[in-house]
């Protein structure tokens, strides 16, 4: 298949074949089925749900990062008119703990609270304000304890455990090749990453509707994985899973923050207790406390290389602060350490990684999942290596670029298509932005409307970043996705439990069905737990896994359709194909519209799609633990005001290895959106934690990029279809946010000559010593 590249200055590229494709099929810019309601304001997000006779629920959270609970007195809350239920730990009928990997987190804190914001109680009342007053009237007697806030202290083992499971969530070492190998060039550095937040716009919300017999409920929830939520909710409620029915409520973004339980169990418990529907939703402040964040990390790396700048060995020590509960830290750590080498050939490695438990806010999944941290470090290293070897940042990366079949430091051969060299070259070939004119509008200078700089105060810099990112889940996890395809009288209906969080799977599913079955109209059934699991909308996996499931289910239905046509017309089914919206005999002249061919038929197939098996890592970090990989390169051009330390990211150029553009406009959206998040991490986004206390739980001080911060984005799509991928397409969601951050940091270094070692870069990091 020919690959296609296109460049653009902020408009999407349609592949050259797009115009020849039928509208709405794979490869075209098909319309979103939820688009019209979304632009009209009629799309029902979980936040918009409402039920007759409903009450509001709210959560009481710990004000302390570490404390022992001596007593909880709810009598004051019961005196408030309008309060209908108050729950604490003793009201949890089933399992008191939950967790994605380890069930170490409490529905409500029992004897200890271990992070600022840990849930202690919940209430149901007639109005959100009544809830607030009820929460304020609950008296919790805390014995405040000294929080453990330094991951190094957790590693050193000098503090007693703050949790029965201990203060080390996971440790993993990777030993590859010769641990004593070295070379004439040795460069090392310390790299630090602050705590980023997913900051999806639609705050957590759910509506729980109890069954009349009180033995079950329906939960409408904005989540990334319905079935995993159901499993944990059912366990905590002490109910069989069949009695806990989850329906996807409209999701206002996710980016990893909806993988863990937040309000699901609380909302369900209140519904069962009151016998009434319960609506719960978080405000922005509570949202910051109510979900996990990206792991802050400290990484030391040392690269040994030949005089020509070819990597001989890498050493790394990585510390990820997992905060109070395990969440997905064990998996984030593995991603971090197994990606330590970056997209480069590396024959020898010694890597040690820790995920620690502290009384800091719990951390877990965020787009990039541990690779963002590793990439910031290895790209900083590559620039140091370039300088030591007298090479340009582009040359050193080309010289070391991985190729298809090269091994990771875990020993796993990267048999995914690995066009690393192409990513770098095509990124570098994208046009540079024009120079800043002498009469540049103040809005385009660093400082923006603040008018802090004149043209003469501004210096420009350029930096590069390249990344490898695993796709799907790892370490032997039996991941699968389920999809059902029905063809009844010419109408195709798809059913799946795949969480649509904005990424556009609902659109892709229709495109697949249109392509395979030759229909234009594809109905989508409710997304709920009335079908098998589709796994999580994360790890850039849904196009591959749920797309694979929908594809397989549609193909099975098509097979049955062809059998029916073949039988009716006395032809071998193998000769039949779909052409446009017709069934055709590829050898003869038969041509029947699909609608006619399927008249009277009721075809119905459900498929579970699985990827190939993966392995655990042994104690030396060796094993084929990942499924597949994608690659990306970024180039960032920034303008810096070095005296004030303010930065304007002017342009980001990127070439991304996507396998195949199934919907080019949608790919553009993922690229631009991911770049914005990586930019935020580079220069403005950080949850500031001091002694376990969050200092900036609001959009006033947790800063997201605005329209005036967005750079121009130019991109090139590298379409070398992956033979493993069911549709030839790799996941595109994560790579855009991974190497853009180090590219921006490198550009700031280039502009200022400063040794930038942490992100987000703060003004004082640039202008003060």
């Amino acid at each position, binding site marked *: 298949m020919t690959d296609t590249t296109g460049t653009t200055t902020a408009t999407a590229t349609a592949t050259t074949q797009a115009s020849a494709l039928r509208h709405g099929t794979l490869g075209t810019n098909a319309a979103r089925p939820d688009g019209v309601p979304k*632009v009209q304001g009629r799309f029902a997000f979980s936040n918009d749900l409402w039920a007759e006779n409903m009450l509001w629920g709210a959560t009481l959270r710990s004000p302390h990062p570490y404390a022992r609970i001596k007593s909880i007195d709810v009598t004051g809350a019961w005196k408030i008119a309008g309060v209908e239920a108050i729950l604490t730990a003793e009201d949890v009928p089933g399992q008191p703990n939950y967790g994605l990997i380890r069930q170490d987190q409490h529905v409500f804190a029992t004897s200890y609270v271990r992070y600022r914001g840990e849930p202690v109680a919940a209430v149901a009342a*007639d109005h959100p304000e009544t809830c607030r007053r009820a929460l304020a009237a609950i008296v919790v007697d805390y014995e405040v304890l000294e929080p453990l806030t330094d991951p190094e202290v957790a590693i050193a083992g000098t503090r007693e455990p703050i949790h029965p499971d201990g203060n080390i969530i996971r440790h993993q070492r990777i030993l590859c090749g010769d641990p004593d190998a070295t070379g004439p060039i040795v460069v090392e550095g310390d790299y630090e990453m602050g705590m980023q937040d997913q900051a999806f*716009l639609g705050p957590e919300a759910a509506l729980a509707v109890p069954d009349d017999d009180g033995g079950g409920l329906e939960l409408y929830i904005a989540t990334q994985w319905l079935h995993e939520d159901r499993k944990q909710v059912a366990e905590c409620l002490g109910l069989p899973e069949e009695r806990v029915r989850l329906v996807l409520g409209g999701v206002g973004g996710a980016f990893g923050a909806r993988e863990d339980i937040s309000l699901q169990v609380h909302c369900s418990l209140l519904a069962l207790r009151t016998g009434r529907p319960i609506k719960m939703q978080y405000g922005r402040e509570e949202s910051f406390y109510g979900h996990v964040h990206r792991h802050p990390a400290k990484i030391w790396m040392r690269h040994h290389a030949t005089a020509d700048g070819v990597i001989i060995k890498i050493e790394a020590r990585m510390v990820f602060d997992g905060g109070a509960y395990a969440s997905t830290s064990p998996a984030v750590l593995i991603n971090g350490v197994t990606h330590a080498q970056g997209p480069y050939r590396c024959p020898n490695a010694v890597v040690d990684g820790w995920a620690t438990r502290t009384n800091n806010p719990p951390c877990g999944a965020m787009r990039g999942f541990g690779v963002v941290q590793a990439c910031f470090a290895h790209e900083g290293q590559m620039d140091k290596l370039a300088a030591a070897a007298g090479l340009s940042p582009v040359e050193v990366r080309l010289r070391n670029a991985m190729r298809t079949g090269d091994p990771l430091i875990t020993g796993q051969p990267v048999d995914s298509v690995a066009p690393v060299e192409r990513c770098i070259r095509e990124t570098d070939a994208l046009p540079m932005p024009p120079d800043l004119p002498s009469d540049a509008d103040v809005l385009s200078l660093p400082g923006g409307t603040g008018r802090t700089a004149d043209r003469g105060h501004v210096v420009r810099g350029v930096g590069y970043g390249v990344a490898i990112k695993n796709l799907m889940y790892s370490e032997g996890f039996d991941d699968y996705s389920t999809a059902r395809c029905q063809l009844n009288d010419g109408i195709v209906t798809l059913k799946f439990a795949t969480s649509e969080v904005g990424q556009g799977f609902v659109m892709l599913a229709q495109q697949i069905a249109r392509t395979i079955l030759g229909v234009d109209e594809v109905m989508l059934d409710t997304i709920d737990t009335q079908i098998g699991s589709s796994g999580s909308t994360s790890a850039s996996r849904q196009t591959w896994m749920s797309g694979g499931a929908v594809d397989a289910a549609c193909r099975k239905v098509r097979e049955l359709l062809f059998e029916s046509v073949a039988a009716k017309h006395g032809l071998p089914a193998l000769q039949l194909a779909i052409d446009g919206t017709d069934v055709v005999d590829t050898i003869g002249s038969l041509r029947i519209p699909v609608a006619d061919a399927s008249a009277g038929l009721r075809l119905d197939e459900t498929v579970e799609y699985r990827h190939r098996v993966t392995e655990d890592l042994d104690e030396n970090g060796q094993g084929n633990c990942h499924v597949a990989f994608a690659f990306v390169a970024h180039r960032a051009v920034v303008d810096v005001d070095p005296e004030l330390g303010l930065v304007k990211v002017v342009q980001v150029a990127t070439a991304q290895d996507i396998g195949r553009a199934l919907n080019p406009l949608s790919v553009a959206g993922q690229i631009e959106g991911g770049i914005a998040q990586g930019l935020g991490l580079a220069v403005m986004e950080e949850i500031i934690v001091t002694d376990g206390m969050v200092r900036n739980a609001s959009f006033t001080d947790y800063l997201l990029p605005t329209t005036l911060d967005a750079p121009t984005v130019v991109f090139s799509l590298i379409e070398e279809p992956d033979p493993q991928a069911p549709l030839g397409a790799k996941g595109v969601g994560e790579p855009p946010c991974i190497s853009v951050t180090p590219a921006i940091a490198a550009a700031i270094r280039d502009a200022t000559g400063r040794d930038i070692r942490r992100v987000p870069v703060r003004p004082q990091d640039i202008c003060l010593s």
Partner: protein
Amino acid sequence: MTSTPLGSPEIYRLTVNGESHDVQDAWLGESLLYVLRERLGLPGSKGACEQGECGSCTVLLDGAAVCACLVMAASATDADIVTVEGLPTSEAAPLTDVQAAFLDEGAVQCGFCTPGLIVAVHHLLDHNPRPTALETREALSGNICRCTGYGRIFAAVDAVVASRAEQSAP
């Protein structure tokens, strides 16, 4: 709407999208955003921050684009309020040109910021039919989008500007 002991027995009247609504039993601290969503059956405007820092709740108040979360509902009597549900559409044309452009240009992902942005873009183009790129960015700098990175949104604005210019060309 379940009644609450917090509520005030007086009724006040809001004019939204050309229609008059009586609001009863409301608690004084309720923002216009809350009243629109929870009392008037108009959940199109969204709440993402309650602080005026995201623009998801943008509505028109006497022609000015404001954050509904920062308007005390009971003080907005006699104001002319327009929400995303009240944009000029009809059965024949159920989408405004701005709404259609957002869809055509891929500017909608999760959609939570979309209603506020649509209102803000209408407001921008009603006052400035040919904004420069920087003017567009500045006018929309109060609307946060976390999914798109804004590229497709700018493309949508450009498309509307171009098509309106074409239509008004002699």
